[in-house]
Every structure is written in C-alpha cells, then in structure tokens.
C-alpha cells in the first residue's frame, strides 16, 4: 500500500483537463448521433430544412424594394429606387412631387372650367328672360307658371 496523496491540480490544468474530456465526450456524442439517427427523423429534419429555406426566400422577396413607378426610361426612376428615398439627391426627391403637382393643377382647371360653364348657362338664361316680351315678374305669378305647364304639348 504505497499510495501517494494526489495534489489538487492548478486551475489552468484542471480547466484544460475538463476541456479535453468534454471534447472527447462531445466527439462521442457526434459519432453516436451519426450512427443511430433513425431514418424517419432524418427525413423530417430534411423536410424542416426545405421549409426553412422556402420561408427565407419568401421573406427576402417580401423585403425586396417595390418596382419603379416612373422608371421606364431608367433615368426617371424617382420612386422605389434601390437605395430608398433617403439615398436619392434632393432634386430627385423634389422631382417625385411633380406628378402630384400636375394632378392637383389638372383638378383645379377642371373645377374652374365647370364653374365657368355654369355661369355662362345662367347668363344665357338671364339674357333670354330680359330680352323676352314678357316682363320677368310674370314668372313669379303662380297662375302664369301653371298656365305655361298646362299649355305645353
């Protein structure tokens, strides 16, 4: 019985020994897993793998920038530029407001034209009444209005 008492290993050596054993243990786990993985689990993991890749492609497609609205000629791509609006120069960002200005101007022109047409129509009626033989007061007479209605063919 000639046993020498074991001296506790210094922390660095102890850590190194633990790391060495852990490396062998995990190597054994990897070996066991490779040799014992059931085929159905392998197949389901492959299926999950494919689903994950499909999800990644979909996510990337959804995050891709929208196609350019005015980019037919290439140089006029002011919306949906690849780098985003914040990367475009100021004059290009200002240029993106031009279509809205044109649209607003067009609406104002249409409204103005419609108003002028109404005014012209009212003026024509007024003029016709004023140059008629009947005085305008005649049209205020309810009996005369009824006479006009009943006398229409």
């Amino acid at each position, binding site marked *: 019985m000639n046993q020498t008492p074991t001296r506790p290993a210094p922390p660095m050596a102890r850590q190194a020994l633990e790391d060495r*054993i852990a490396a062998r243990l995990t190597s*054994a786990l990897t070996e066991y897993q490779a040799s014992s993985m059931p085929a159905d689990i392998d197949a389901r*993991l492959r299926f999950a793998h494919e*689903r*994950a890749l499909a*999800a990644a492609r*979909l996510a*990337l497609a959804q995050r891709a920038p929208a196609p350019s609205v005015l980019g037919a000629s290439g140089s006029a791509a002011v919306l949906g530029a690849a780098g985003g609006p914040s990367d475009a120069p100021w004059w290009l960002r200002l240029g993106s407001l031009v279509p809205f200005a044109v649209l607003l101007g067009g609406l104002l022109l249409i409204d103005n034209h419609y108003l002028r047409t109404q005014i012209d129509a009212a003026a024509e009626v007024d003029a016709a009444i004023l140059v008629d033989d009947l005085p305008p007061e005649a049209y205020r007479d309810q009996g005369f209005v009824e006479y006009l209605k009943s006398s229409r063919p």
Partner: protein
Amino acid sequence: MPLSPLATDKELSDFLKSVEKRAFKRTAYTVRNDDAALDIVQDAMIRLAEKYVDRPPAELPLIFQRILSNATMDWFRRQKVRNALFVNLSDFEGADDDGGDFDLLELLDTSGNRTSTENAADSVSRMQVLKAIDAQVAQLPTRQREAFLLRYWEELDVAETASVMGCSEGSVKTHCSRAVHALAKALRTKGVTL
C-alpha cells in the same frame, strides 16, 4: 464600421445542415419526446429563416441557439409544466455532486490505443460506450446539460453560452465543470474510458 455580407441561400442551407441534427438531439434531451423536439427544431429553423435571413452568416449560430432555447421554453409553457420543471431543476441543482476528490484523469484512456484498427467486437463495444455516454448526458440536470452542450458541442464561447442561457459567465463555468465531473464519474463507475 463596414457591413458584413448577408447570408446567401447556400450559406443559410449549409448552416442549417450543420446544426439541425445537434439541435434535434439537444432538444430531445430536454423535452424527452422526439416528435415534440422535431416540431421545436422546425419552428426554430423557420423563425430564423423568416426573421434573420438578412443577418451576416457569422451571427446565425448564436441567434439560432437563442431561438431554439426560446422555442423550447415556449413548448414547456404550452405544456403547462414550467413550474414543475423549475422545481425539479432546483432539486437537481441542490443535490449536485461536482465529483469531489474524483480524479478526472481516471476517465481518460492514456494507453495510446485509441487509433488502433477496430474489429467487429470492438465496434460493438464502442457502440455500447457511445450509448452509455448518450444515456449519461441525458441524465444530467437540465441546466448543466444545456451549458455543457452549448459550450462544448455547439462550440459557443462562455459569454455566448451565458447569453443563450440567460445567466452569468460564472454560472456557465460552474455548470460545465459540474457536468464534466458528473459524466466522468458516472462513466468511470460503468468502467468506461475515453
């Protein structure tokens, strides 16, 4: 700071291929149900692909381990056994045996015969050893096993392991040390050397 390139389809595929089997095994150790483990791993892989595909490839391992840990915890929440799990965990932690005076060197086969050619009997014997190691890892307390597998099997560093587990680096070191000692002692008792 220069931006790292984003993960390509192939890089993501290669990464998933490199981790999916270990992820399954690690989850199966925890939930002890192969079907549930497969669901959790699939869920984690899809979450990674959907939300973090634009991250550089170097960031994927840590992100994936975090997602997997969260997905596993979500599974336990859904199973309404979270409280029971942590009660059991604390029981295990309190009863930990860190090996005491056990000499780790006793587990290592220092004869230098590890690389010799194996015959059929050796192969069977080797498989039994691997199975014993797998069983002992499965019997480790959950936190010790998580720390051990993340640190040494997934090869995360101590800080990354602590980040995934939500604990301090000191706790990771303690869990890993205890796990190695517990495994070494249990395997030595069974006559297993590495």
